[in-house]
């Protein structure tokens, strides 16, 4: 046999990415840019030296978590467009704890991280409970919750965490994820320990969904609520739980920014897009834990690398946006790639 199914499953995303990059190259060429230079600049921007590598990983960190958030909900049949808002409240909560207490690190840092997860979970709980009890469509509620989160966080920064300032003070070092060691290893990039949390959470998601009875229930409810009810599962509880866990992942993504990258929270004039990009990351990663990690890596690389394209190769960063979109399309349309494979397979026999 020419290709095994397993191999096709692995090859499809790779081919999609290559097709996406190829299309990007064609566009560059068409508009008079040098695709080789363009991609070289992108590569250098993401991996050119250990500094950029560190920054890329830093960027990947929240993407993993927001991707997990979206993926987890989708696996249970819920579209969580509210990751953005959950990131906001998570960020806010982590910074709040980070600036409000002076505690030993072993308590302070976990507490701040936990606060973020709880805040995100709460923000997911609201659409979850409304869906479970009243059947209100989670898509609308989460969209609305994003705006509420944005405005409330801004207000909290201005009126509660500070006295009318745009930005909170820096968190205490005891609550910080930043690491001298990681930074010095990467020429003072902002790489922080959050990546460990993100990877750990990916493992947690994989374990919970695939190995635990809770995951069994969640997936079952995601596929067929009637059968789940018949089988004695509590459908409402599982819907709420799915949103709560999803929200917690998103809240952690916020903590990565609050405790890692920035160390403070500021008044935001709009969305961060960490949550919205998380939708793309999750879908690129086929809603699996490992897939999300890889997709986040791809996404982070492209985003960070793109920053280097205008200075080094004169290519506008927007082009990368197009490439990302095309990659998503090719992944989404994997049916057609699979079809081509099967044709080959048939003829190859």
């Amino acid at each position, binding site marked *: 046999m020419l290709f095994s199914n397993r191999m096709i499953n692995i090859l499809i995303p790779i081919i999609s990415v290559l097709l996406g990059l190829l299309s990007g190259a064609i566009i560059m060429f068409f508009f008079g840019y040098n695709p080789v230079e363009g991609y070289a600049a992108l590569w250098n921007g993401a991996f050119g030296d250990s500094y950029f590598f560190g920054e890329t990983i830093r960027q990947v960190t929240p993407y993993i978590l927001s991707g997990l958030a979206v993926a987890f909900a989708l696996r249970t049949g819920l579209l969580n467009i509210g990751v953005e808002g959950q990131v906001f409240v998570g960020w806010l909560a982590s910074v709040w704890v980070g600036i409000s207490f002076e505690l030993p690190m072993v308590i302070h840092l976990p507490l701040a991280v936990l606060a973020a997860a709880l805040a995100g979970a709460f923000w997911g709980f609201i659409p979850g409970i409304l869906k479970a009890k009243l*059947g209100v469509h989670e898509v*609308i509620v989460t969209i*609305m919750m994003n705006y509420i989160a944005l405005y409330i966080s801004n207000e909290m920064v201005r009126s509660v965490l500070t006295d009318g300032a745009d930005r909170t003070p820096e968190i205490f070092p005891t609550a910080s994820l930043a690491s001298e060691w990681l930074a010095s290893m990467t020429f003072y990039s902002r790489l922080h320990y959050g990546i460990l949390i993100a990877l750990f959470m990916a493992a947690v998601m994989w374990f919970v969904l695939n190995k635990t009875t809770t995951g069994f229930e969640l997936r079952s409810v995601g596929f067929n609520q009637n059968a789940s009810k018949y089988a004695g599962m509590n459908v409402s509880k599982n819907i709420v739980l799915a949103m709560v866990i999803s929200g917690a992942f998103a809240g952690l993504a916020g903590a990565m920014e609050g405790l890692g990258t920035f160390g403070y929270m500021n008044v935001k004039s709009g969305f961060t897009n960490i949550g919205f990009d998380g939708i793309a990351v999750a879908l690129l990663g086929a809603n699996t834990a490992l897939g999300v990690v890889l997709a986040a890596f791809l996404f982070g690389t492209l985003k960070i690398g793109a920053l280097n394209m205008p200075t080094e190769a004169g290519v*506008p960063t927007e082009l990368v946006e197009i490439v990302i979109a095309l990659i998503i399309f090719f992944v989404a349309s994997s049916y*057609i790639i699979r079809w081509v494979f099967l044709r080959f397979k048939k003829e190859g026999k």
Partner: protein
Amino acid sequence: MGIIDIIASIIPAAMVYAAPLIFTALGGVFSERSGIINIGLEGLMVMGAFVGVVFHLTFYDTFGAATPWVSILVAMAVSALFALVHAVASITFRADQVVSGVAINFLALGIGLFLTKQWYDKGQTDMVERPFYATDIPGLSQIPIIGDWFFSDWYMTSYLAIALAVLVWFIIYKTPFGLRLRSVGEHPMAADTNGIKVYRMRYIAVMLSGAFGGLGGSVYALTVALNFSHSTIVGQGFMALAAVIFGKWHPLGALGAAIFFGFAQSLSVFGSGLPLFEDVPQIFLLIAPYVLTILALAGFIGRAEAPKALGEPYVKGSR
């Protein structure tokens, strides 16, 4: 200012906010009624805004005062073509419709900004010189109260939005086309066995959603934003999606939902001037539209039934 005057200023303002959402939501209704989730409404609006503005800037000398109208037509056409990408992916290639919609959002913004850079050599276009203007309807605007409320300072596009909502309602609920469209979204196989071309219906519906999304985006650009940049369409498409679901996939429901959003936003702005809300802290007014929406859903709108086949690619003969 009396309450009647306040209402007179709130209504047209709310409609300005609502009209782009109405158009786009109508597009969403078409698409989702045919069974194709359209989370790419945001991207379709972006495309519409981009094309509308660029066309206007380029051809103002040719079309003069008619330019805004021609521009929205062109934006409709281009966005319809653009929506074809979503159609091909989600109908023919059986892509996950949510994924494909997300890609549409990225793609539209990417293309719009990239081309803006190429053509204008900067991050946003110039401002259009002659956008849509609000007008008073001669005669009707003289009617006491009603005239002030409904016939003064309205944009023609706001009337168009309402008219189109009614038209779409008629199409979807009264015509053979609409019956077929709905059947395709509820039970594509049943439609197929009745000799309806499921793919073709879905293609048409998705392209219509593109046209309407493009209309929404271009109307927004040519009444409110007046130029195109990365900050022109920031979430309106998602609000339109919310209006589709809020309105229970019904054209008039979507109309109502969009107008509801418009009023909620207006109230949050106008509220600070109303005696009732004077002492309410700003933050509450800010979040009020969103909280109200959730409350309305939880309180009395409740469970909405999506078209049954929504999100499922139709594969001939699958079980």
